[in-house]
């Protein structure tokens, strides 16, 4: 069992949890993820690692309630335990293996969308600890959904916040800010974008135009997360890759986003059905139009 030490609601339906997981805390690196299972009946949910404390033996995750599984996760309090918590899975971000000397020469831009801000954080923090300050764009739908602003501002070189509705910071999509920054004379050698699939797709379109190599962290459907099933397969540069072992980070300009987005929809109705069942219990007997 894996004890939850702290729970924070960062924004409406977005939660942060610090979890005791000694083996993972000892070995994890930025870019990797874990799989969590709330209880014996629960499904396996993949989540990118948001922070870790090697000495305390803890790993921090951030999640948004989107389906029955995450709704149940959000009901847990500090002191409760997860039934299963496995990792670190996937490959660390490429820069973890690069020489510091080379890395210091580079100008890096991070683009975070929504709850994707959480997995961006440990990467920016890791760089900061090595004396490298990266620029960060954080995009949220609206001011209330903005998370980790303070934490991010402490580790980022420059932090640019943008909201779709203009309720805070700059107004509009993150892609506009990328364009603006480059037009203002900023130069970036590499861009790392993490967020909803659709956002990463459009960031990649933009950076391709601007000639900035871009890394994305994909979030396809997963089951085991160790390479044994291929549920998370994606096409990158015409080749089939398993995001859980070959990724989750890939060259964004080579990812087939349209296919990845279609695959992500696979259980949409099943997931929706599970949420309804959770909410309405035995009184739910369909009728919403989505259920069989």
């Amino acid at each position, binding site marked *: 069992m894996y004890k939850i030490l702290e729970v924070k609601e960062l924004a409406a339906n977005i939660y942060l949890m610090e979890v005791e997981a000694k083996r993972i805390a000892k070995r994890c690196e930025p870019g990797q993820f874990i799989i969590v299972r709330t209880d014996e009946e629960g499904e396996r949910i993949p989540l990118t690692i948001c922070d870790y404390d090697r000495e305390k033996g803890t790993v921090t995750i951030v999640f948004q309630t989107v389906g029955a599984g995450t709704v149940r996760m959000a009901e847990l309090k500090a002191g409760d335990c997860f039934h*299963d918590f*496995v990792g670190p899975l996937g490959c660390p971000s490429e820069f973890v293996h690069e020489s510091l000397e080379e890395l210091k020469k580079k100008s890096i831009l991070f683009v975070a969308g929504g709850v994707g801000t959480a997995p961006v954080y440990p990467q920016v923090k890791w760089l900061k600890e090595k004396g490298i300050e990266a620029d960060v764009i954080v995009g949220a739908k609206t001011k209330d959904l903005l998370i980790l602003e303070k934490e991010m501002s402490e580790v980022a070189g420059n932090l640019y916040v943008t909201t779709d509705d203009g309720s805070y910071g700059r107004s509009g999509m993150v892609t506009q800010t990328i364009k603006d920054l480059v037009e203002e004379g900023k130069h970036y050698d590499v861009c790392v974008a993490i967020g909803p699939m659709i956002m990463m797709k459009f960031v990649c379109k933009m950076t391709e135009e601007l000639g900035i190599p871009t890394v994305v962290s994909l979030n396809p459907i997963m089951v085991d997360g160790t*390479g044994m099933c291929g549920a998370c397969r994606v096409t990158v540069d015409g080749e089939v890759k398993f995001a859980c072992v070959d990724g989750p980070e890939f060259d964004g300009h080579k990812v087939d986003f349209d296919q990845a987005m279609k695959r992500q929809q696979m259980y949409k109705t099943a997931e929706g059905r599970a949420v309804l069942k959770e909410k309405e219990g035995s009184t739910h007997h369909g009728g919403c139009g989505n259920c069989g």
Partner: protein
Amino acid sequence: MVISMDVLKKVPVREQDAKVRAANFEEVCLGYNKEEAMEEAGRCINCKNAQCVKGCPVAIDIPGFIEKVKGGDIEAAYQVISEASALPAVCGRVCPQESQCEGKCIRGIKGEPVSIGKLERFVADWARENGIKPVGAEKKNGKKVAVIGSGPAGLTCAGDLAKMGYEVTIFEALHEPGGVLVYGIPEFRLPKEDVVAKEIENVKSLGVTIETNVVVGKSVTIDELLEEEGFDAVFIGSGAGLPKFMGIPGEQANGVFSANEYLTRSNLMKAFQEEASTPIMRGKKVAVVGGGNVAMDAARTALRLGAEVHIVYRRSEEELPARVEEVHHAKEEGIIFDLLTNPVEILADENGWVCGMKCVRMELGEPDESGRRRPVVKPDSEFIIEADTVIMSLGTSPNPLISATTSGLETNKWKCIVADEEFGKTTKEGVYAGGDAVTGAATVILAMGAGKAGAKGIDKYLKNK
């Protein structure tokens, strides 16, 4: 006691009716009762130089345990079996006995062989129902061994080492131990709670610790286990869990699954139950590509989830790699076999969902290096099989994660760990390996045999160290 009508024939085993079972996930084969078992045991002629034992990869004293069944002392029969096997309730159910113990049975020359598998199963089930446990080591020897993977190879190796007095910890990547026994083989062939979980409890009762949620190569490395965590030796039984795909167009469409994914959802995540939180596609028309036991398992699972199911296989019935009994069961339940058929493209609708599979007809040509006749495409034979779900069951290969993160561990070109057959010794000192991780996908009982060999190898190594 009923006197056998025909000593040349096996005492028939009771099964669920095909029509009934096609709609449920309960066990197909109901097994013998004590009277039936004793009657069947009476057919064994207790050969001096028993060939059946040679056919068993873990060399159970078959005439020895059958003799006890004959006399009605089932507890004694169980202790005879558990000297050699840690998982008799599993093996009695899933071993391909026809090509192993029963294939060598003298009775089989003139009539049907003794039903050794069903007898083993009866003894193990009886022991479980009556609370009989295997006997553990009298005292510990103070040495620690790590076992990677809790499938048949790992469980057997761990059980044997524990009986020799070693302190054994199994590391398992998934949240539940059992490997293919829990994620691969379906409930209707191998009940999880009543059979697999109980048999794993028996291994634990020998003093084996199981740590789940540890992905060796990620959560910890073998080098760390040896150098930092104080293990004196390691056995790798991590299996061959990496699925293969065909590489044909359309394979990434929604509704195309590896058999591993489909079966893991159904078996491990219990998606076959309506109330499960993990979803599974309940297709109307399912095509399973492949002809092995895994293909049969996936097909029969899809059938029970309410689909019309086709097995699509490129050779003829004779070459089907699945067990005869499984093919027979699948047919009885109404699975349709599209033989000498090979998919060339998966067709998807405008939303990216599978709607059919373009196939070609095959004919058998000259035998290839494996001795099987090579399938050749018939010209102009393209046609479309309608399907909303496609399950690819083309075999699996070992996961390179462990070999890639362990210094000095050699693998061959198929990513299989190089290890000797007799003792499972690898190219790295103190590290032994066996099962599918070494051979590529094979059978439960061969993995158990390799687990036994590994335990012997480790014992020999640590005694001489």
